[in-house]
């Protein structure tokens, strides 16, 4: 039960002033600009865009500054901002096969058309603190090599040519694409709706669930078929213009997880797949997402559903960190009346027990009986 409580206005105003002061930190240290966050804390920006479900690097950078680096709070700010804007429509589905690739690795094939391109990665770094960053050393110019314009097909497309892996049905082009920002999430959800939910889901939650499948809670025998990072073109069918207009490019990360087989009396065995896609450079997120996407297909693929990662309701209803933080953190709001009721109840229970104990005399017979 909630009851309006007045009287905190001055305290709240002053708390917000104090927050602004705390956000600024030591005034002797230069203030950080959103552009610095955008350029130098780019992976935090990418995570806020992905979980805030809004691609806008500058906006995410301001949100991170406003949230004092609290990325869940920043995603919350971004989600709130998007509710203030009209929606013009939807883009044509992005073509990740046509990506301008900055990084592309496969753990399943060594020699792939286009090769293994490491790009800017923490992989193979020693995880030793680099004190040169404290000193502000100059950064070396990146190495360059001749770039031959070979296409980089998705690994899953290569396996698909030999019919060794399941294909994804193209879907009905006229069917509406379900959107959980417009209609409440309805279970059971199709894979399209599940992927929308996972794409904006909390990285930590998906990482832990994906990890749980590797440890045996809904094992799917995954291989990282391909992870690719790069820029894709966006086109938007503007009805007043009459054709799909280019909007520019966005950076996305895609993970194709290749999992163990599924066949039947009529179908030969084929590898199955899990899929991850996110705004910006969010590799860990897309890997967790792909593991969970595959785990959630257990029912469809005739596997026993017994682990948390396979439980659609458990995963989809708890993946959103803005919803989760709202409900967990609302416990901080005044619950004075609820608690008064609980206090009344516990005092009454204790009084009744004490009264019965007094009536039973010193041997405590009634208390013993109550305990039984």
């Amino acid at each position, binding site marked *: 039960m909630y009851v309006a409580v007045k009287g905190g206005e001055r305290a709240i105003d002053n708390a917000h002033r104090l927050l602004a002061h705390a956000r600024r930190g030591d005034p002797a240290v230069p203030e950080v600009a959103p552009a610095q966050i955008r350029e130098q804390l780019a992976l935090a920006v990418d995570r806020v865009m992905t979980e805030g*479900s809004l691609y806008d690097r500058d906006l995410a950078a301001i949100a991170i500054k406003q949230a004092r680096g609290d990325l869940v709070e920043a995603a919350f700010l971004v989600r709130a901002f998007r509710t203030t804007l009209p929606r*013009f429509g939807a883009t044509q*589905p992005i073509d990740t096969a046509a990506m301008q690739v900055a990084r592309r690795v496969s753990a399943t094939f060594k020699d792939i058309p286009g090769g293994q391109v490491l790009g800017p990665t923490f992989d193979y770094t020693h995880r030793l603190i680099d004190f040169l960053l404290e000193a502000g050393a100059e950064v070396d110019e990146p190495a360059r090599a001749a770039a031959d314009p070979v296409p980089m097909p998705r690994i899953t497309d290569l396996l698909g040519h030999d019919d060794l892996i399941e294909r994804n049905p193209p879907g009905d082009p006229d069917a509406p694409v379900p959107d959980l920002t417009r209609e409440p999430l309805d279970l059971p959800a199709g894979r399209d709706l599940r992927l929308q939910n996972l*794409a904006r889901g909390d990285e930590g939650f998906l990482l832990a669930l994906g990890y749980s499948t590797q440890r045996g809670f809904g094992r799917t025998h995954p291989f990282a078929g391909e992870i690719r990072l790069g820029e894709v073109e966006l086109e*938007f069918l503007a009805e007043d213009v009459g*054709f799909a207009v280019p909007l520019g490019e966005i950076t996305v990360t895609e993970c194709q997880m290749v999992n163990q087989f599924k066949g039947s009396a009529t179908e030969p065995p084929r590898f199955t797949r899990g899929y991850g896609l996110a705004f910006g450079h969010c590799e860990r997120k897309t890997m967790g997402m792909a593991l969970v996407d595959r785990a959630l297909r257990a029912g469809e693929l005739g596997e026993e559903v017994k682990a948390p990662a396979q439980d659609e309701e458990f995963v989809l209803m708890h993946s959103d960190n803005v919803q989760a933080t709202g409900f967990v953190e609302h416990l901080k709001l005044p619950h004075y009346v609820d608690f008064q009721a609980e206090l009344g109840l516990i005092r009454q229970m204790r009084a009744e027990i004490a009264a019965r104990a007094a009536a039973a005399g010193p041997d405590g017979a009634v208390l013993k009986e109550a305990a039984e």
Partner: protein
Amino acid sequence: MTANADVPDSSVNARKTTMAAVCRATTTELAGLDAIAGDAVRVLRAPEIGLVMVRGRVGGDGAPFNLGEATVTRAAVSLPDGVIGFGHVLGRDKDKARLAALADALWQAPATRDAVEALLRPVRERIAAETALKRERAAATRVDFFTMVRGDN
């Protein structure tokens, strides 16, 4: 505002190519368009910030799904002879959306197309150089596998 629906495909493709270059231009690079247009331009749609839902495909190649939204700013202008230009650009830069609409209108008008192309030439060169540089830097991180020589015994 349903003009230009009857134009042939090749013209649409050329117009889209121009729009794509304008999207990647900076507002500063487009500022010269105002001088080409003069002051008889009518604003049909004042720059407006909104969202588009970005779609992906299940598995990269399957049915579409909603990935998340992106901010987009749009605008529309018309020239005195009735040519309508549309601007759609990622982000929240209203002046850039207005200039993009202006670029689209001026590019469609035969009298000003060359001037727009001339203004976009350095933009296209910059984009091409940046794309080439990104490709070359990525290519330098391509793994050259070699197999260790194994002895016969």
